[in-house]
């Protein structure tokens, strides 16, 4: 039996130990990663999480942040929303100063809400929905990515100005919100610059075939002179749609969105050409040496370069966060956010980025127009739209 004295000693010992841990925790700066390391969302979170890890290593090599080392704590949301909330809460209670959450709004929000409740900043590693921020989660939440609308708007603008395209046809994958947002941006910009949208058609990514959509499009090309197709979809449905369009002999230029970025799916459409999409960064042969340096560091650490652009946005966001933390000299949520909100065209490795107190998503940054040919994706030029995407387009009210 334990004597009373040893019990007291044990209690004091435990107390001393826990204080020591707390002091130790207060010394570090902690980034929590509540993302999917398993399950199907891993396809979207995995490389961004690796990139964040790389950023932390690089930052620590340069002396950390506020003179303290940055520590990473991770939790696997297992591609499950309920699990996401649990993991989010756990990491916040372990002292995360910044919480990285899943790339998708629906899957990242449960964890982000836990951070918001605790006064901790959260960032979606790749969400394209403005709800992934002030309106959906709260003022301490950000997304590292751009709004889907920006991608459609950039393609519309570039297509009109540089490719001389005048008659568009939209093919929207109705299965998810992102694809609808992309086409909403296109439908806002293309008529604005002087183009005509001849027809809008829909499909679902999981449909086994888009043959009736192809029949309608073929008629439209024949009778109305449609000169390009805006395909708002994500893989695998998007790759399948392009394969079927080309198989049907439709060789018009096709515009895609970053949901199709990368070359991993190109086997679906052998010999693909005249296909364009906007991208933030190319894993190989980007025009900016700084991006190539990040890609090679990634390749060195993980054995292969990222497969899509979705690995990169978090790197730029973490740079901005570190800048705001340094300026505020604290990791305290509200103070750092106040700093982040003042960033206008702030220079990052990926180009200028802007946050405002109302919008924690990029809606007018430049993107690279990339084209596909010879089994390669290459940058054509950087493109930035003029004018701001209006709120009714951004939030898709007014039937968009």
């Amino acid at each position, binding site marked *: 039996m334990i004597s009373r004295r040893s019990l007291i000693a044990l209690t004091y010992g435990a107390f001393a130990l826990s204080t020591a841990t707390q002091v130790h925790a207060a010394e570090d700066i902690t980034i929590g990663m509540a993302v999917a390391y398993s*399950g*199907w*969302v*891993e*396809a979207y979170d*995995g490389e961004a999480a690796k990139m964040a890890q790389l950023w932390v290593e690089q930052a620590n090599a340069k002396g950390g942040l506020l003179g303290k080392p940055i520590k990473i704590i991770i939790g696997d949301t297992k*591609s499950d929303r309920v699990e996401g909330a649990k993991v989010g809460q756990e990491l916040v209670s372990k002292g995360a100063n910044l919480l990285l959450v899943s790339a998708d709004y629906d899957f990242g929000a449960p964890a982000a809400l836990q951070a918001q409740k605790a006064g901790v900043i959260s960032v979606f590693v790749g969400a394209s929905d403005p709800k992934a921020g002030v309106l959906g989660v709260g003022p301490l939440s950000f997304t590292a990515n751009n709004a889907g609308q920006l991608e459609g708007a950039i393609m519309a603008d570039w297509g009109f100005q540089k490719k001389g395209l005048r008659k568009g046809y939209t093919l929207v994958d*109705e299965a998810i919100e992102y694809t609808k947002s992309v086409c909403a941006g296109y439908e806002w910009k293309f008529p604005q610059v002087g183009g005509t949208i001849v*027809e*809008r*058609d*829909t*499909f*679902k990514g*999981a*449909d*086994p*075939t888009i*043959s*009736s*959509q192809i*029949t*309608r499009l*073929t*008629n439209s090309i024949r009778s109305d002179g449609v000169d390009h197709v805006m395909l708002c979809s994500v*893989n*695998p*449905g998007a*790759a*399948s749609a392009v*394969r*079927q369009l*080309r*198989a*049907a*002999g439709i060789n018009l230029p096709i515009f895609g969105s970053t949901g199709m970025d*990368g*070359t*991993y*799916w*190109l*086997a*679906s*459409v*052998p010999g693909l050409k005249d296909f364009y999409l906007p991208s933030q960064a190319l894993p190989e042969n980007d025009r900016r040496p700084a991006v190539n340096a990040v890609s090679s560091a990634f390749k060195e650490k993980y054995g*292969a370069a990222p*497969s899509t652009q979705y690995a990169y946005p978090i790197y730029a966001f973490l740079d901005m966060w570190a800048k705001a933390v340094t300026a505020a000299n604290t990791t305290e949520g509200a103070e750092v956010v106040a700093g982040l909100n003042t960033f206008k065209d702030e220079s990052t490795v990926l180009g200028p980025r802007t946050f405002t107190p109302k919008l924690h998503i990029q809606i007018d940054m430049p993107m690279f127009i990339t084209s596909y040919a010879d089994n390669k994706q290459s940058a054509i030029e950087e493109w930035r739209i003029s004018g701001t995407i209006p709120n009714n387009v951004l939030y898709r009210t007014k039937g968009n």
Partner: protein
Amino acid sequence: MISFFQNVIDAVALGSIYALVALGIGLIFGILRLINFAHGDMITVGCYALIVPSTDAAAQLLIGSWTPLAAIAAIAIIVLLVALSTDALVFKHLRRASPTTLMIASFAVSYVTQNALLMAYGARAKGVDFWSGVNVQIAIGELRVPLLQLITVAVTFALMMLLNLFLRYTRYGIQMRAAAEDFRMAQYIGVRGNIVIGLAFAISGMLAATVSLLYVTQSGSLSITMGVPLVLFAFVAVVIGGMGNLLGSVVGGFLIGILLTMLQAYLPPDLRAFRDAFAFAFVILVLLVRPAGLIPARNTIERV
């Protein structure tokens, strides 16, 4: 008018795919009273079996690069074995269970299969360059018919004929029909239950393999859940056709394919997003008029 004929061809081709899937589900249901939702995952297995198992983003063809005959045989054997193993590992132990229990077990098999594929191949959708040469168009007058659609329809009809001949004129076919009519009575007169059930799984596996090959040729894409929407609509096809009746499954499959294509083609733009809702409303209507399906099986009327 041209586009109407084009739509009819599109509809029949989609109907063929659904008919093949429905046939695979109907066959198992007829004998086991098992609504096999894992049938869609057998299709997925067939698709993934074409490539090298790897979590790399870009897929490398393995069986898919073989000669067509070798690839067809290999995929058929693989899916057949996986289908048989679902029976041996799971359904065999539930022979006396109620149809509801069996259905829930099939969900479990589906879940396990999808996650096994996810572990072996990774979560990211993949692209494959499989039989892309078939993706050409044939001009018939002003109509431009995709060769693959013609192949799909031809393969479906050929398989239906073969299955019909097998069930009518071979010893095991007759035993399967007897078992579907009344399983216990068939056993009393000497039909070996496990052989008949094994055959049903084997044939449904081969049908799934056929769908895999046609589907990948068309889409050139792979994803872990690719079989799920197919099986969902095929199940609906089985229900409106008349559960337990193979002809009903085929008719239901074609009907669903034609219905979905025509709704997609002729609904006004604003309503197209609700295509599936219209399709299901039609299904409800059919079931209100004919609760046992269009061609009810004699022995299952009270079960539906």
